[in-house]
């Protein structure tokens, strides 16, 4: 038994103990956070893969298997989300008994019902897993068959996936995050969540790619390829900040009670510190760290920026979810146990996938072209 499994096991024990010692509310809030973090890493990577097929990208072909592997986190994420349905009556006010009295209106009541919610979760997960099976599984199959038809299939499938992806991510954001406070309105939350997801996916891909390059498992991948990943990280750091501020600015200006209470809860008292930390760690540090040209292809820097961004995405989700538990941020052993369990499980899952197939899509007819890519 490796150290990693040991740590994961310890985390699982701690998380289970948290259910009884810290109460189901805190347990399920943690669970929700980590299921969404896993989803972000997996779905963000899958989006990158689909985007590469859609645009027929050349630079990314040598790195595509890496993204396909981190996209595999969708499987544990989907399992976690199915389990997360048990959080409904605990965390979500509209699922409480007697929820008809909630002030969110009839239109929302039709959308927010436990069976419909579960159906949406299952449907979205099925869509993502199907896309993963088609794109990543097809690519693995291509390793053996070398059939160009599989590349064509992926390219034809990508645009449909994009459309459904947009719908499903918005749905997930509204369902899992927004409906924690069902009286709240934000049209842009879906985009906000997408920005976080894609950034987390990019950070995971970068992290794994840097690791594999360091281990000498991606021969031929050079500055030019990595530079594009760094550029993506930089661009979407800015995108996330832009969207996050756009949401805040409009609500701050309009000052409507059904919108602004959400920010009041997250910007007053100790939560203000979390919001400021979010600005620093999710924007300022990665932005300035990635500004110089050489930084975008510098492996050690990319590694710490990717880790930082994953941490910042954790903080983002924490700041989105935990204020519903109370005015004071909760962070002690239950949160640490959950982190150990989920990070450990994710790493175990990734390690497992590292043993499957080649490290590059060796069946892709355009791999040579991809390796020859120069900026």
């Amino acid at each position: 038994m490796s150290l990693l499994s040991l740590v994961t096991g310890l985390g699982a024990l701690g998380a289970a103990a948290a259910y009884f010692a810290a109460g189901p509310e805190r347990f399920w809030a943690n669970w929700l956070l980590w299921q969404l973090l896993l989803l972000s890493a997996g779905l963000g990577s899958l989006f990158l893969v689909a985007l590469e097929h859609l645009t027929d990208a050349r630079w990314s072909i040598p790195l595509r298997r890496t993204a396909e592997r981190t996209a595999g986190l969708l499987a544990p994420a989907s399992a976690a989300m199915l389990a997360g349905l048990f959080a409904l009556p605990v965390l979500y006010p509209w699922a409480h008994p007697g929820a008809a009295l909630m002030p969110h209106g009839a239109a929302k009541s039709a959308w927010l019902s436990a069976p419909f919610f579960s159906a949406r979760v299952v449907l979205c997960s099925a869509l993502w897993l199907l896309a993963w099976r088609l794109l990543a599984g097809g690519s693995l199959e291509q390793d053996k068959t070398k059939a160009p038809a599989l590349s064509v299939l992926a390219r034809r499938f990508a645009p449909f996936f994009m459309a459904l992806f947009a719908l499903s991510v918005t749905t997930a954001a509204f369902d899992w995050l927004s409906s924690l406070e069902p009286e709240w309105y934000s049209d842009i939350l879906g985009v906000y969540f997408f920005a976080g997801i894609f950034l987390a996916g990019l950070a995971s891909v970068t992290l794994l790619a840097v690791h594999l390059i360091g281990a000498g498992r991606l021969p031929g991948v050079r500055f030019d390829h990595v530079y594009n990943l760094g550029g993506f990280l930089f661009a979407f750091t800015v995108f996330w900040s832009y969207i996050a501020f756009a949401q805040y600015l409009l609500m701050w200006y309009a000052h409507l009670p059904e919108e602004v209470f959400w920010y009041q809860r997250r910007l007053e008292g100790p939560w203000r510190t979390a919001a400021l930390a979010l600005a620093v760690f999710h924007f300022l540090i990665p932005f300035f760290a990635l500004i110089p040209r050489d930084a975008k292809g510098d492996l050690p820097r990319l590694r710490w920026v990717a880790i930082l961004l994953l941490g910042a995405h954790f903080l983002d989700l924490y700041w989105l979810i935990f204020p519903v538990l109370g005015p004071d941020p909760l962070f002690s052993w239950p949160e640490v146990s959950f982190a150990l369990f989920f990070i450990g499980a994710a790493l175990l899952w990734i390690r497992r996938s590292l043993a499957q197939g080649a490290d590059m899509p060796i069946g892709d007819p355009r791999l040579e072209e991809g390796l020859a890519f120069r900026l």
Partner: protein
Amino acid sequence: MLKRPAAVLGLFESPRALLSAIELLRARGRWSLEAYTPYPVPGAEAALGLKRSPLAAMVLIMGSLGALTAYLFQWWMNSVDYPIVVGGKPVDAWQAYVPVLFEVTVLFAAFTAGLGMLLLLNRLPDFRHPLLSSKSAAALTRDKFGLALEPAEGPFDAGAAEAALREVGAEAVEVLNQPAPPAPVKPRTLLLLAAGGALACLAAGLGTYWTLKLFPALPPMSHMLEHPKLVPQKPSAFFKDGRGMQAGVPGTMARGRLPYPCKTEACASRLANPLPRAAEVLRKGRKAFDTSCAVCHGALANGRPLLSEAYGAKPADLQSSRFLSMEDGRIYHTLMTGKSAMPSFASSLTDDERWSLAHYLRALQRAQHAEDEDLR
């Protein structure tokens, strides 16, 4: 005039051929190399051994300067020069600054990048560049990759450069000559230019003048002036009876406008001032006095205002004995009804303001008729 060769240009079919030629010729080290390509060729920078451009640093500095400018500009306007409350937000609200700050940062950075690259670093436009006289200048912007050899130091042996270019695989070689120095400008040309400029100015000026004369200016966006506000004595579509002015709702009264029972001064002299003689009340009275009374009665209430010369009326001297002994109620009454040239202040002041005014007038009178005990 003798033609002096400035450079030798070789044309290549592909970027790859260009790169390998650069590599071979740089190794010889006799020339300084310059590549001319229709698009940025990856690797050419490294092959030519170009130094890192200072443009990035310039953009960073100017971008930061843009952010600072936008911030200070907005901060100064909003919280120093003209503080005004908008939408119930604080006057100095950083949130509202961010969009402009972002735009100005981008503006400064983009202009620095574009203009700095063209004007400052590449010194364009340069109409005397030897390349412009080349036969293949058009091809270089289309599908050919050019490499020019220029003398690194000492005299330039164009023949040797030509041979070297052919050796590394140039498909065509051309000697580019130093362009002739510009001919001196004739005084006649200068005169013509000056006359043309003056004519153009005149035409533009007269044209603008007559255009504005003949075609009256269109009103600027006037829809902000045309909001459906209520105007006294004017019809309004807002109320059912189509009038802009409405009688009060029966059985109600407006805030600060209690019904006034007195018709005579005798009745009014029996009214008691309902407000205490407190600092807050005096402050309010002072404000009302300075706004409504001081123009005519003077800031000291002695009937000698700054404007008395201008309009020739004789406002009452409120410091005279008649007013020293006048009851608060009668002062209130005068404010309600007006007196000779003085208009009524029934609608422009509130109840509280009128009573506060009476208190303040007492303070003014006492200030002009101070007694010994006031000095102790």
